[in-house]
């Protein structure tokens, strides 16, 4: 059967089309869906698109930043108010992929992709989803844990609080090929602090599990402490606790476990 392309004016119509047809897939920038089609993925019979401009809106004027699901990485890089997200946006693909790839699509990108989502997870982002029962907000961690079930819904936007300072949010993607390689491990850390002590640390890891995950033991090692050598060592030692990364063509799970602490230490201590 040929693939059908349906374009709707409103997001609610898109959400209805997605929830009623299991073989329908939403097309954002096409960097994942068109690749799947070209490689012979026969599970996609319908492609759904939206002409709704709300999906491409950015609201970066206040302390809470809202980014439409259809915003591309190139647009984030062009937005001065989103400087804290430039490092993760720049780490994705090459110029062609950044021109087409979207924030919403990145939430569904399988390993070794999905680096922007790692940054969003460390920032405690909230995902706004239009499902069969209307619009609702889901914490990104919960969203990722049940990602498979969100295939029939439409992501409208993501939002997060702006980090208090440039130093409070850090991001690093480790790849063998630069600048376009797939991730061996991606790290993002949000380190809010008050009175010289970290309060509510968030450390997110990509390519260490089927979806981006938090390194909660490492977070606990930092909370309530100042970011000194002892705390960094404790976090680096604990980073893989409870995490068992898989092997893939880029690296073995063993290698990922070995290097996770090394790169977290470098990230936290500000080393190149």
């Amino acid at each position, binding site marked *: *059967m*040929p*693939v059908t392309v349906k374009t709707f004016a409103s997001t609610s119509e898109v959400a209805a089309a997605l929830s009623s047809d299991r073989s329908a897939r939403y097309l954002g920038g096409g960097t994942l869906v068109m690749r799947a*089609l*070209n*490689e*012979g*993925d*026969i599970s996609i019979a319908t492609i759904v698109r939206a002409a709704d401009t709300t999906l491409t809106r950015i609201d970066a004027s206040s302390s809470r930043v809202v980014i439409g699901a259809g915003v591309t990485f190139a647009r984030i890089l062009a937005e001065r108010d989103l400087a804290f997200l430039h490092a993760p946006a720049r780490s994705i693909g090459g110029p062609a992929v950044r021109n087409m790839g979207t924030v919403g699509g990145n939430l569904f990108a399988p390993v070794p992709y999905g680096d922007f989502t790692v940054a969003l997870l460390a920032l405690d982002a909230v995902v706004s989803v239009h499902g069969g029962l209307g619009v609702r907000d889901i914490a990104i961690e919960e969203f990722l844990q049940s990602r498979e079930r969100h295939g029939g819904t439409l992501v409208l936007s993501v939002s997060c609080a702006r980090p208090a300072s440039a130093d409070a949010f850090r991001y690093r993607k480790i790849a063998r090929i630069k600048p376009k390689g797939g991730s061996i491990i991606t790290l993002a850390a949000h380190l809010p602090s008050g009175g010289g002590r970290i309060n509510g640390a968030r450390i997110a890891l990509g390519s260490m599990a089927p979806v981006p995950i938090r390194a909660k033991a490492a977070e606990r090692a930092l909370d309530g402490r100042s970011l000194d050598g002892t705390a960094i060592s404790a976090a680096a030692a604990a980073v893989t606790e409870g995490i068992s990364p898989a092997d893939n063509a880029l690296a073995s799970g063993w290698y990922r476990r070995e290097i996770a602490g090394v790169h977290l230490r470098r990230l936290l201590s500000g080393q190149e």
Partner: protein
Amino acid sequence: MLELRKDIFADERDDNLKEIGKGTQRQDMLGHVTGTSTYFDDHKLQGMLHLKVLRSAHPHARLRRIDTSEADRAPGVRRIIRGSDVPRNLNTLLSLINFGKDDEPTLAVDKVRYKGEPIVAVVADSPLEAFEAIAKIRVDYEPLPAVFDVEEALKPGAPVVNETYPKNTFTYHERYDHQKLRFGDVERGFAESDHVLEQRYQMSPIEHAPTETNGSIAAPDTNGRYVVYTSTQALFFSLDTCAKILDVPSNTFHFIGGTVGGGFGGKVDTLTEPLAILGAMLTGRPVRYVLGREEEMQYGPPRGAERIFIKDGVKRDGRIVARKITAYFDSGAYTRLSSYAVVKCAAHLPGPYTIPNVYGDIYCVFTNRTPATAMRGFGVTGMDFAIECQMDKLAHLVGIDPMEFRIINAYRDGDMKAHRREAKNTALIECVQVAADKAKWPLREEFKRMSSRKEGGGARAEIPPTPREPVASRPAPAQQRTSYDRGIAMPASEQRPVAPPPPPAPPSPPAAPSHGATRFSSVFGTRRR
């Protein structure tokens, strides 16, 4: 010097070239940067059908039953092609020059020997319909024990990968399971050495990763002929291969190639043309068969993996007096071109050095991995990597500068090479001198004055007495160092490869096949020396 018969090839080469230092436009560059170069896939023909293949899910399995009945009825399907539809469903690429036995089917029949081996081809109106029909094909596999390691494959009782070669090794000269090089007496050389160093090197397969994946379009022409637009980098080689597999005269085909979107050796295997043409023959329509990116990466042939053991004996003054090499080339499940890589390797040993005692055993081994093929200097590049790593370690061992160590051992004009050809036009010494100069690497004055054209030949041109029978190892003198202290010391007994007993040496072992060597040149663009 290479002589060009100007009386015959008057226009072949301009002898007054002055190109170095000038910006010269590549002849195909304008088309590439303006997007006007025509590739095989730029032909959209009227009524063109699309072919996709079902690939094996197992690295080694018997095919109990293939059920295509549901796929036959799937929408858009024009034809399903099975192994029995292929006129000559067994081929080896180099059979065109009488080298090797036919060992590879176009579509697997009784069993599959690597993960991703084509089993059934579907010709449909669109690529998507072909994929949908493939999902409806049911294959009943009986998984068999698989072997992925070259040394494991040589052990007694290892699974037989390819019944054409039941010992899991390519057969040379209809008798021998490896290529053998003997020059002098390495055992005597080791006994006379101040240090002996044995090391193991392992190369991984390397994918060519062309921008344009392998593919072709075949279309019926008048007079029962077929036009084939193809990505091949070996046009007439592919044409003759198709003529053999499809059992028709080669003038049945008009192959059109020319612009290859990245080849590097990965487009000589004629992966897509036979099935595209067969699809056109069976449907009377143009048929396009293009590998997807994942197919190209996963199942397109790579440069083969190699496992290499090098044992060297060296004197305190830096002279290497013996080099013994045992290498296992991983051909994957079928021969393709690895048999030839082994021959090239044997002719290349012991690298660009004059060593009086050389011993080489090189095996082309079959495993349940993706078949390997040509890639830029295959058979030589990996071996050179190992040899040059070894040279650095040896230089460290004897405490000599690694650049000077290479000059000490470099071959020179007039020297006898291990495969019994006189060395000509040698230039390693000059290369090292220039490299050292560019890198501002200090060479002592006497090494700067050395030349490849001096002090070669004479005693170095003689073929040393070479024992026929294997000589028993002699006890090493007590002062010898046998492990390399910068690396992990491995006990020789553990890393010694388990190899079948070598067959008796042939009366005069040829290092390269004498037949058809000129056609090799036309196929691979290599020049006979």
